[in-house]
């Protein structure tokens, strides 16, 4: 074993000696990961020194205030009232419109804030609360979620991805650096202020679990991701792109990076709701891949049943406070998927917005028919890769399928994402 490794190492030595980072991967992948993640954290903290968007800009401020407000609401009200408009919970002022897992996360972070800076999460009085220390605490909540959820998930992903193909250590290190230093993610979470790292971390974890054939874990993680942010797969786009970056090699990197950038900055800035189309296309790849794999097992029905149970169970746990009555479920659901907005917001680089220069979609069709149209477009563009997944599931195709559904969702879904 040792001998084989050493001859292999000698062969790679020539290549690895030619990079200026030869010493970084010398000790194995865990130390390199440690080093890269400390650097990535440093970049994140440095970015977080800058103001968040909407700082000092009343009356609505920005996402920072939305997140802080959610902490205030979840901390001071019982779970049943989180999604309900009442005298204490004015939903028109940054009402909670993310699934329950986000609410729980806000609650935990709210506890953290309350123990250090109680003023920042007081009901009513804390609206628009901005202070040096408050900002710092909020930044640290994002930072810690990133380090605790996203970073381990990436490590898991890289291990799962390379376990089959046995790539070079420097490739793995590059891959880790590519994902952890993705500028869009850093800017949105630590500059603009959001918690994408959690949903994204769960999604990456799910991808890794699929790659390492742990279907049940994958479904749990993915259900959790969906319950954190309904448009989780939109973000997986950037991850798949990172992966593509590696497989395409360096020449494709610049183009992809640019694309990557426009791809995730704008949508996340512009929209907070996604809708049913999201859920469909998001889960599409996962379900089809898992389904395809289950059908190849000895007891296909039992496998599907097991997966279904796990998914339902996860959902049931997360939705526990709301599943007692149909009314409260529909209350939450209506918060998650509002269709009042138009098919596209300005500046979003999707299909509808781009083609609207030539075809005035909003004038030609009514909103309901546009909904159907966009749904049909999204599903039909997702379908090929989904069918292929059911037909012959493979890890490689699964990743392409993810990319495909993320893109089709981003390009064709209602409200532009």
């Amino acid at each position, binding site marked *: 074993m040792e001998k084989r490794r050493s001859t292999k190492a000698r062969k790679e030595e020539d290549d690895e000696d030619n990079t*200026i980072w030869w010493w970084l991967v010398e000790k194995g992948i865990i130390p390199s990961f440690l080093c890269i993640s400390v650097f990535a954290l440093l970049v994140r903290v440095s970015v977080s*020194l800058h103001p968040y968007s909407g700082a000092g800009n009343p009356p609505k401020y920005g996402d920072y205030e939305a997140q802080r407000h959610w902490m205030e609401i979840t901390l001071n009200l019982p779970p049943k009232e989180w999604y309900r408009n009442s005298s204490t919970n004015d939903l028109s002022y940054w009402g909670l419109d993310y699934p329950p897992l986000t609410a729980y996360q806000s609650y935990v972070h709210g506890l953290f804030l309350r123990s250090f800076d109680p003023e920042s999460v007081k009901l009513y009085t804390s609206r628009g609360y901005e202070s040096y220390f408050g900002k710092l605490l909020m930044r640290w909540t994002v930072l810690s979620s990133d380090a605790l959820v996203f970073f381990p998930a990436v490590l898991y992903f890289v291990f799962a991805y390379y376990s089959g193909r046995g790539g070079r250590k420097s490739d793995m290190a590059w891959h880790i650096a590519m994902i952890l230093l993705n500028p869009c993610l850093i800017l949105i979470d630590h500059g603009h202020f959001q918690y994408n790292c959690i949903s994204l971390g769960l999604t990456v974890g799910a991808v890794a679990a699929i790659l390492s054939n742990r279907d049940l874990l994958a479904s749990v993680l993915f259900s959790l991701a969906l319950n954190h942010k309904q448009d989780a797969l939109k973000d997986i786009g950037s991850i798949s792109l990172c992966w593509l970056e590696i497989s395409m090699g360096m020449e494709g990197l610049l183009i992809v990076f640019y694309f990557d950038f426009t791809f995730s900055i704008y949508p996340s800035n512009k929209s907070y709701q996604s809708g049913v189309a999201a859920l469909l296309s998001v889960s599409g790849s996962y379900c089809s891949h898992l389904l395809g794999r289950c059908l190849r097992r000895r007891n296909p029905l039992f496998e599907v049943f097991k997966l279904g149970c796990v998914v339902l169970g996860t959902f049931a746990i997360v939705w526990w406070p709301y599943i007692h009555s149909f009314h409260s479920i529909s209350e939450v659901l209506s918060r998650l998927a509002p269709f009042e907005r138009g098919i596209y917001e300005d500046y979003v680089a999707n299909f509808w917005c781009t083609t609207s220069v030539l075809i005035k979609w909003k004038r030609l069709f009514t909103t309901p028919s546009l909904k159907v149209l966009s749904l049909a477009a999204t599903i039909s563009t997702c379908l090929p890769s989904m069918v292929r997944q059911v037909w012959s599931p493979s890890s490689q195709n699964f990743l392409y399928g993810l990319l495909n559904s993320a893109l089709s969702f981003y390009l064709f879904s209602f409200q532009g994402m």
Partner: protein
Amino acid sequence: MKDPKNNQTQITNPNKPFTELLWFFLIASCIKFLLIPAYHSTDFEVHRHWLALTHSLPLSQWYSDETSPWTLDYPPLFAHFEHFLSLFAQFIDPTMVHLQNGLSYKSHLTIFFQRVSVIVSDIVLMYGVYCLTRNLERRKRNFVWVLVIWSPGLMIVDHMHFQYNGFLLGILLVSLAALQEGKDLVGGFAFAVLLCFKHLFAVAAPVYFVYLFRHYCRGGLIRGFGRLVLMGTMVFAVFVAAYGPFVYYGQIQQVLSRMFPFGRGLCHAYWAPNFWVFYIILDKLLAFLLMRLGFHIQAPTASFTGGLVGDSSPFAVLPTITPLITFIMVLLAISPSLVRAWRDPQPRLITRWVVYAYTCGFLFGWHVHEKASLHFLIPLGIVVLQSREDASHYFLLSIVSCYSLFPLLYEAQEYPIKLLLLLLHAILMWLGFSAYFSKTKAAEASDPGQRGGDKFGLKRSRGSGSNDIRFRIGWIMKVYLLGLLVVETWGQFLHPILLGNRLPFLPLMLISIYCAFGMMYSWIWQLRRIIRSIDS
């Protein structure tokens, strides 16, 4: 098998090191740019005021103006540097360079301009490192860059606390590079220029003098004298260029009194981790013990951090320290390296001697700032890969010195940054050293004949060490480094919880004392090395 290849890479593409170095520099610059909104100390206002001062007033009044308490106390070339910067600053924001209106002025553009000026002036540092490392083998070179260009100390002092050390150290490195290559005249010139930028670098002047006298001015009486005259004239010319105008305006007395404010105390407000920390503590302990034994000890009225010298002694028992004593002590401490330089002036050892001189200046000097540890840390990075002992010494020293800079940034916002900087540095050093020395070992094992005579002539530990030269740190060092963690935990968490607001100086004092042990170790280690080389 390896050596020819490395030589090949050196020969084939001479421009390549620079492009590679540029990458390192750009990565560091990215972080520096991100750190623009970070905390900056009063030094920021000091330098802004100097911009305004040199921009609005004629040369003759630079050192006599008292508009702000932050009077100009750097040598003239630095004032010219500020004047040069102010030429651009006036277009960015005119208020910044206004003498009265600009006081404590902090617009976004001002901060941006000043920060960027530091980042851009670091190009000198990059050039200095380039000069020093362009002839090194590639693997060594890369790693030296990591130590110098990504130095967390420079990041903390220059790009957060705000100073221009990278620029000044760059000049020092250029000078050292010239000396190592045997271009003594250039080296001497660069050092003279450096002294006219910041006179604190003068601690190494004896080493420079002795080295240049013995190395440059040799070859017979006449030739040697001729060279001495040449070198002397050149150094004199630099000083005339810098100080001449002030002599002409009759300001030289004023300039010197500004540059050497001996009214300051033995220690800075935050005690730099040096020898005097032990002296102070010993004095306190003795006073305490004697009091217990029934002696009558008068409590000192003066403090050692400020106050005028000669008023009263800040020490209860031990004799007072005057600037002269510190001066003599520094000279005494440096003397082994002077003897060595006198006996056998070797270009390859000059960096070590200069580093040693700055270490002595740091340990025994008068009113030393903690930032002065960068003066020896940065040049030491150049020679660190010569042996495993060097590497482990550097590993300890750089962590200690970076940690001793922590009190400069006391606000909560920068806390994770300084922690991550130190952590990243430690991991990089660990990865780099272990990779480098394991590779060196492999290369030596594969062809012992070629590698036996190390280029730098330094003995590796033979015998038991010859089959294990991998990078390791001893258990004492490990325990000491873990102790840093304890000190930090005490200062940050346990002290506020257990003692509340009582003894507020204790955490800082602990850091000073604890780091002072590391610094003393480093001094003794270097001294031993120099003395040993005398014996051999």
